[in-house]
């Protein structure tokens, strides 16, 4: 049995909403797991069941070899960082960190040492006497982290802790969280709807849709090998291009071009997926793109335009290429980097 084990966990809220469906998942000790998915897919619900803040309707949760279903959150030895931090407004930073330790009956000197160590690690030593209302967003974030770290819990739970920060700070804190987790080595679950955050933080990530884990794997596995239309569309930025097509006798016919010798016996209506970065310009290419807009990011250009059938399409190329608005590009797909999905079920077929 692994460190944290979810077995057929289901959550049905009293009002009948089925937020999580028979989810099973194992997380190893020290692993950084990310739950990613669109808003309302059940990420928070799953996380809150691990914390004990929501009852489990069906299934089992085991943490460190102990069944957690009936264990009170105060007894679970888990720490959680909330989206709005939930700092204690009437306590100064020191007491915010110390509170959980005091409740455990730890003696004063040990508490002081632990709080000071955590404060040093998070560079908040200068604010220990301040109330949370006198801190900036980034500092509050650190205090919330400190409150989790100082207790040295079995598992850290993060529920979208970066979404209240501005873009720059978010990237900085993302990096710090990752570094910190590696340094402290505590098993962590991080919930986010932001796929970039998910990709950069995760050892492994679980892509969740409608209360179901659609795919579980390392970020690269999921990027390289999405198992469903949903995962393919959700992971990767800019989003994968999707084109309608038909597969028959190992030949895919999309509007305007064909791909032969496809590694699949599937026959019928399909969706062809191509990532913007898996294309390159060549004479007599398969795809002909009429350029409408170029976003120059410096390192890359994002080229937006339409295909012959007026379908929107995106192409990503190195930033040193000049591309004129209104020109026509002829593009080829890089060697076999395309994905074919059954149009009716969304399942990958190649």
């Amino acid at each position, binding site marked *: 049995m692994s460190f944290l084990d979810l077995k057929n966990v289901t959550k049905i809220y009293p009002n009948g909403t089925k937020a999580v469906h028979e989810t099973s998942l194992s997380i190893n000790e020290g692993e950084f797991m990310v739950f990613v998915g669109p808003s309302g897919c059940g990420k928070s619900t799953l996380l809150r069941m691990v*914390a004990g803040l929501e009852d489990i309707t069906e299934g089992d949760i085991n943490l460190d070899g102990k069944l957690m279903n009936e264990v009170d*959150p105060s007894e679970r030895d888990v720490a*959680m960082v909330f989206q*709005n931090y939930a700092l*204690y407004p009437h306590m100064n930073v020191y007491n915010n960190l110390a509170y959980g330790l005091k*409740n455990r009956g730890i003696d004063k000197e040990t508490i002081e040492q632990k709080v000071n160590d955590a404060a040093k690690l998070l560079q908040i030593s200068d604010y220990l006497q301040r109330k949370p209302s006198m801190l900036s967003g980034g500092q509050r974030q650190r205090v919330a982290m400190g409150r989790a770290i100082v207790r040295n819990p079995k598992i850290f739970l993060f529920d979208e802790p970066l979404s209240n920060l501005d873009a720059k700070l978010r990237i900085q804190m993302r990096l710090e969280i990752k570094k910190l987790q590696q340094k402290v080595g505590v098993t962590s679950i991080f919930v986010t709807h932001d796929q970039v955050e998910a990709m950069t933080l995760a050892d492994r990530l679980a892509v969740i849709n409608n209360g179901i884990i659609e795919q579980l794997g390392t970020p690269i596995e999921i990027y390289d090998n999405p198992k469903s239309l949903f995962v393919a569309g959700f992971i990767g930025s800019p989003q994968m291009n999707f084109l309608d097509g038909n597969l028959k006798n190992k030949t895919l016919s999309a509007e305007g071009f064909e791909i032969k010798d496809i590694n699949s016996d599937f026959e019928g209506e399909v969706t062809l997926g191509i990532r913007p970065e898996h294309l390159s310009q060549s004479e007599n290419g398969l795809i002909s793109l009429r350029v409408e807009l170029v976003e120059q990011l410096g390192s890359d250009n994002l080229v937006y335009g339409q295909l012959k059938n007026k379908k929107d399409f995106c192409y990503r190329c190195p930033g040193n290429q000049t591309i004129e608005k209104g020109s026509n590009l002829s593009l080829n797909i890089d060697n076999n980097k395309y994905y074919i999905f059954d149009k009716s079920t969304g399942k990958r077929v190649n």
Partner: protein
Amino acid sequence: MTRFITSSFSHLILLIGILIMVVPVWMIFASSTHTSSMINMNGLQMFLGDSFYENYLRVLLYQGGFFKEITALKMFFNSFIMATGVAILSVVTSLMAAYALVYYRIKHATLLFWIIFITILVPLELRIFPTYSVMAELNLVNSYFGLIVPISASAIATLFFRQFYKTVPDELLESAKLDGANTWRFFVDFLIPLSKTMIVAMLIFMFVFGYNQYLWPLLVTTSEQYWTVVMGLKMMSGSIVHRFAFVIMSMVPPILIIIVLQKHFIKGVFQDK
């Protein structure tokens, strides 16, 4: 320039308002420092006389009542005990009632709350005889306990605390739980400190409410030993200056409480947190 005129005008109105309220009180105070023959001959006085100590000391220490066994000093003591008791007891019960209503999974908590709330429509005066007979059965007539308890359940304070608790974000409770706090610790370490200003405001309200009680103490005390200040205002006999002095002194305790706690009071009433 027009702004100056309008603001002077509004200040003038306010000043007139203050004068209308303060002048009678001042006249009673000024008159209470003269001798009674002076007042009887010349009517109420606007300026201070020189009998302040004489009059006030006599009022405080004079043995009054039918049996001559109660002094004003004792009445102040009784009123203080009663008002403090009412204030503390009603704040404590309201805090706990509101806590249970908001945080415990009580069935029909909202209905229960409204049942508590409609007791506002049933003031003590309406239920005074049943309440009296309960206290009489319990042998609590002529006791501080009997003075305090029947008026120490406050639906208003419960309403205030309940509304406040409802604004406390759920994450705070959840976060505290994960930090190992049980229900009691959450109440003591979070809700009480967070509602500190509101508690102070309620203490003041309930102190004044308890202090101003007239009908209930009148009914539940037969011994002069338990007379309160407000009862004394009616019961005190004596010359006019002594009555004036007593009226002035009777205003002091509520005013003192408000002055001492006003910083918190104003914050509690006008600020949510």
